């Protein structure tokens, strides 16, 4: 039997550009996102047939109604041109495991069904999205022949800590492409790549949740698709309670990274140096919202972890590494410092333990959180007075340690098999 979603897709038949917006209770922000998307499509791709797909996780705050309601009444107020085709809106609930990945799967299915040439996904809680984001994410695919466009944002120096301390350095080290925001959340990709994503059976795993971003980026690089990045400016999104989300967010992202290491082992075992990727967009400085960081609490969490979880870590870490952690635990708040080489060693050792299944995988990943908070605290302390450029240099030096210690990873990984 045909579902209403399939009915809507058949009604539209084909599309040049598909814009996917996953949502869950985002009625306050989704209106702005939709207006920006519609304006972007009308301004930069007025002749293209475009479809907007809202893949909703069962919002109860009127998000779907807001999507239906929002229209740009008079394009002349913001544009000189007018879209040739009306922009179709498809609003559908997604099925499967609740999470961003499942919402994306519905968007990929729509892209396949509509034979879309270029697709974009943008978060529904964005406050800083502009029509230009659509151009920057679509044009490299629509006109330049790229398959995957990752975002490049201006962010506060303490934002994106999982990205900066784990995902970016590790992705770059393993797969050789310097994509600065591999889990940015807003992407452009070709219809061909969307079809490829649909061939994979990962929709019951962490990929169906927060792991979707790194999964998409890694597959695009590892499978040899043409990748690039576009500078979008500042990324400001709806205020959440990051502390409440850290546990599942951290475990789902890191588990996806580690799972992919197992999948593409033969690729990353080869020795190569990382390369930069083509970057689109005009770089400019932006004012960013200040963020507050409770360093003492993070250090406290690290110390508690060393005291209580060391027995679990001993199962996966060499004795010298656990001794190193114990010595850091004894440092005062003022002297607290977690060096890059220890951090890289921890990330690699946990990856090997995850691959070998030495400890229950969810327990293993959750037990990493105090170590991660220790690294964040150390990073914040180190960079309190640093400028954004200086912080970027520090991240670059961390990446070099990751790359420099890759032979250690390869050797230890092989030994464990």
């Amino acid at each position, binding site marked *: 039997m045909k579902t209403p979603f399939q009915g809507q897709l058949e009604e539209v038949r084909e599309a040049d550009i598909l814009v996917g917006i996953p949502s869950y209770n985002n009625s306050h922000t989704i209106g702005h996102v939709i207006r920006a998307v519609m304006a972007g499509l009308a301004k930069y791709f007025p002749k293209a047939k475009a479809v907007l797909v809202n893949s909703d996780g069962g919002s109860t705050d009127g998000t779907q109604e807001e999507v239906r309601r929002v229209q740009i009444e008079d394009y002349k107020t913001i544009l000189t041109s007018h879209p040739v085709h009306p922009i179709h809106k498809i609003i559908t609930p997604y099925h499967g495991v609740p999470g961003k990945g499942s919402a994306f799967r519905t968007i990929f299915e729509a892209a396949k069904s509509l034979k879309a040439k270029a697709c974009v996904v943008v978060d529904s809680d964005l406050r800083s999205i502009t029509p230009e984001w659509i151009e920057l994410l679509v044009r490299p695919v629509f006109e330049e022949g790229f398959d995957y466009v990752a975002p490049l944002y201006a962010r506060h120096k303490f934002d994106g800590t999982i990205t900066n301390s784990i995902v970016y350095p590790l992705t770059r080290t393993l797969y050789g492409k310097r994509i600065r925001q591999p*889990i940015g959340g807003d992407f452009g990709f070709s219809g061909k790549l969307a079809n490829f994503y649909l061939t994979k059976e990962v929709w019951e795993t962490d990929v169906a949740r927060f792991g979707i971003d790194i999964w998409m980026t890694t597959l695009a690089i590892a499978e040899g698709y043409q990748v690039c990045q576009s500078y979008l400016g500042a990324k400001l999104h709806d205020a959440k309670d*990051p502390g409440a989300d850290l546990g599942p967010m951290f475990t789902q992202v890191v588990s996806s990274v580690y799972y992919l290491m197992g999948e593409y082992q033969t690729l990353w075992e080869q020795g190569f140096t990382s390369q930069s990727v083509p970057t689109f967009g005009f770089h400019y400085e932006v004012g960013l919202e200040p963020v507050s960081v409770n360093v003492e*609490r993070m250090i406290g969490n690290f110390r508690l972890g060393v005291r209580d979880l060391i027995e679990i870590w001993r199962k996966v870490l060499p004795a010298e590494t656990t001794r190193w952690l114990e010595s850091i635990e004894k440092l005062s708040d003022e002297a607290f410092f977690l060096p890059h080489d220890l951090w890289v060693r921890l990330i690699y050792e946990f990856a090997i333990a995850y691959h070998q299944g030495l400890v229950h995988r969810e327990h293993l990943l959750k037990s990493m959180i105090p170590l991660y908070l220790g690294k964040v605290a150390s990073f914040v302390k180190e960079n309190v007075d640093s400028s954004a450029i200086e912080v970027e240099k520090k991240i670059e030096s961390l990446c070099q340690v990751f790359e420099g210690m890759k032979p250690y990873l390869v050797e230890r990984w092989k030994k464990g098999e």
Partner: protein
Amino acid sequence: MGEVWRVAIIDSLNKFLGKVITFFPNVLAMMTILILGLIIAWVFKKILFYFLKTIQFDRVSKQWGFADILSKGGVTYSPAHLLSRFFYWIIILITLILGINALEVAATQNFIAHFFNYLPNLFAGILILVIGYLIAIFLGQATLIAAVNAQMESAKLLSRIVRWFIIILSLTMALYHLGIAEKVIVATFSITFGGIVLALALAFGWGGRELAKDFLERYYKGREKKGEGEDHISHI
């Protein structure tokens, strides 16, 4: 007189020989059972060992903390080795009992019948203990990690409470299943568990009244003032 003695001795010798002749096949049967049992036990041990190696039983045991307990207890065998030896000795035991049964000695018949009737309960009891232990280790570890991530200073204590509660619960269930002092076990468990809950309730509500008040106040006021002292960095 001499004739009487001769008849008596020959008669008893004949009777003895008759019994030996009747009993001899039973002895042969017992020996055959024992030899076959030994061979079956040895072959089963080898097959089971290779099967456990193939399914990486040692790695799973390490993952569940079972191998750690064995090494802490001074057991040098790997879990796969230990389990295959355990089943080897079980088969030997059953063989021995079957062998004794083959002798058809009246005194042992009853005992063996009881033993075989009890065997399923014994296995079920052991199974309950093993599964209970594994669940206790798993949930104890999960509690420890969750409590550390929630920044609870008493994370280790909480984890031990969870682990021992499940171990005691599974021990109680196993003993109940084995039919050992059923009523005493249930009563002891109910009294102990009820006592612990009451003690905790009294300790928290009476002894730690101020602490409880402070905790609840902080909890609700904290919810009202959500965001104060929180981190506002976006991790992704």
